[in-house]
């Protein structure tokens, strides 16, 4: 069953009571939430995700719920609960959808040590995965969304999972998080895109999430072979500039970019080493999304 196979009323009822199992990137989350914004978010942005009412084995039991006590009446807050504990500070209740998404990302980045996890977007076309690592604000999510809007498969906008035993990228296909100016940029660039509620005044500014294409969600069990690592940088009014990066400095940048390089120890080193030996690596500066996509597709089809 997929989320969209359930009626809206049933889904809301399950979310409010027993919780419901939803598969995200091969991991099963048991999601419970009495908050309407959360059920709306799931119904609107996760329609194509596999869903089970009574999944026997759950990887991550999670809940987004209002903080109890007096705060219910005065500036109410919502908290993210994982396995009975609250790993981070509650947020204003109207930011619940963002809290859910951040919580899901945290579950994976804090617990999955079978993969080297990079803080980067990753997309794939014709068997070639392109990894886009960059700090927040560099435009990596915008570029990733633009590529997805033009037919690339979304693997992740946020977490690139590289299997330490195979070196392949594991998809973690879930809604794409965009913030501030990039929201309107993508709305006009991606005709027919579906987005969730705007969460204003978060620590990252105004945040919302875009529904991933159905094909990407349905292919979320297909691993992808990394072909390129591109460090994107959005610079206003700039031409497209692309230049190769040497492996040594890319290695250092990716160590800083990884969530668990140090946790993995030797495995982390070997995984990163193997990755950099199999990909072309570029620094990439752009302002026009169309021009950026043309350049990336040219490099992907004809690696130098």
């Amino acid at each position: 069953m997929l989320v969209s196979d359930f009626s809206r009323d049933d889904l809301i009822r399950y979310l409010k009571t027993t919780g419901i199992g939803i598969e995200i990137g091969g991991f099963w989350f048991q999601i419970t939430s009495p908050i309407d914004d959360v059920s709306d978010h799931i119904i609107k942005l996760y329609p194509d995700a596999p869903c089970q009412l009574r999944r026997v084995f759950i990887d991550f039991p999670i809940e987004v719920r209002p903080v109890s006590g007096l705060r219910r009446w005065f500036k109410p807050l919502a908290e993210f609960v994982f396995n009975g504990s609250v790993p981070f500070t509650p947020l204003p209740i109207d930011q619940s959808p963002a809290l859910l998404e951040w919580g899901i990302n945290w579950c994976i980045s804090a617990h999955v040590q079978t993969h080297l996890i990079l803080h980067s977007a990753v997309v794939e076309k014709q068997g070639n995965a392109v990894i886009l690592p960059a700090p927040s604000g560099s435009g990596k999510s915008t570029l990733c969304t633009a590529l997805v809007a033009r037919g690339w498969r979304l693997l992740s906008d946020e977490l690139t999972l590289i299997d330490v035993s195979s070196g392949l990228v594991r998809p973690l296909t879930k809604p794409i998080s965009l913030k501030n100016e990039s929201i309107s940029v993508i709305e006009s660039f991606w005709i027919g895109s579906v987005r969730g509620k705007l969460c204003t005044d978060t620590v990252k500014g105004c945040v919302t999430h875009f529904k991933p294409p159905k094909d990407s969600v349905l292919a979320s069990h297909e691993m992808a072979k990394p072909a390129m690592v591109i460090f994107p940088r959005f610079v206003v009014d700039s031409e497209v500039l692309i230049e190769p990066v040497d492996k040594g400095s890319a290695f250092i940048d990716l160590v800083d970019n990884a969530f668990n390089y140090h946790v993995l120890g030797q495995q982390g080193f070997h995984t990163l080493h193997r990755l950099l030996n199999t990909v072309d690596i570029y620094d990439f500066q752009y302002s026009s999304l169309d021009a950026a996509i043309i350049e990336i597709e040219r490099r992907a089809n004809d690696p130098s």
Partner: protein
Amino acid sequence: MTPHNSVVLCRLLTGQVAGYELSLAEWNTTIQLARSANVLGILYHRLEEKNGLLAIPDVVKWHLSSAAIIADKYKRDARQEVERLWPVFHSRNQPLILLKGSAYVLADRPFAKGRTFSDIDILVPKVDLTYIESQLRWLGWGSAHHSEYDQRYYRKWMHELPPLVHAKRGTVLDLHHTILPLTASLKPDGAKLLSDAQAFSDQVSTLSPIDQVLHTATHLFMDSEFDHAFRDLLDFDGLVREMDAGDAEWELIVQRAHVLDLVPPLYYAMRYSRLIFNTPISEASMSRVSGFWQPKLGDRIMDWLFMSVLLPPHQEFHSSAKGYLSNKMLFIRGHALRMPLHLLVRHLAFKAFIAPFIKDKKKSA
């Protein structure tokens, strides 16, 4: 003993049940409980020891192996910290004496394989505290508790300095000079623990095997918080099993507990370790310890209070009235054991009424 939903986890940990015997539904509960009790990494190694990992479904296995990888990182980090720390102690002709988790792990104790720990605990003679603390400052260790009240609270009444946090690495050190607050009703002599400490490598020592057993029990049953109670009791079980203690050894342990004024926590640890982990402790040894001391309220009431907080925390329990009540009552008990009433009232009153205003003043300044 009433059945509880941690039975399968307890039996897996002590090898009474094998991994292949579990259904997927049992694994679901077990993984969640083991995670909330912080023993997933330990469980990985105990199953591996018995070649029990092969029979476990892949969807389950990665939870265990990931936890073991994280535990391994703790071990590497602790080893590096010890490399930096031991010269400070040796320059004073003092051994570096580790306590609890980091000691078990760095001494490669089989029962502690895969164990994590939140800080590195060190035992220092009281006379050397000031010197060691000042030397550690040069290496980047500073106090995380800035308020004057907290500093005085620790230095005057507690058995340890305020936790030291490394400015760059964020590692936390606890410098102890004894194992119970100076204000506690029981008065173990830190000097006796120090003089019996034993080296386990060129640089590092820890308490004698018997004192380790007593310290684990004391840490667990004289405290007011039970977040790590299940794992600490599992330490006790592991220490006892590795010691292979028969009645003669138990006689020595009970005697030592008597000398150090630690019989009550030993009694509880023996009782609940037997109940929960089936730890091999004979009736004769139990009556030896209960000959010295028994709980005033009787076992039934204490069982009611302790069993629920010793088992891994899980959601239904925390929201239940019983869970709430036993946690609160044991919180009060823990504080009462650690401080006489007049000090306790003073301390809690300060924390409730004065401390919040001091913080606010600093923020607005």
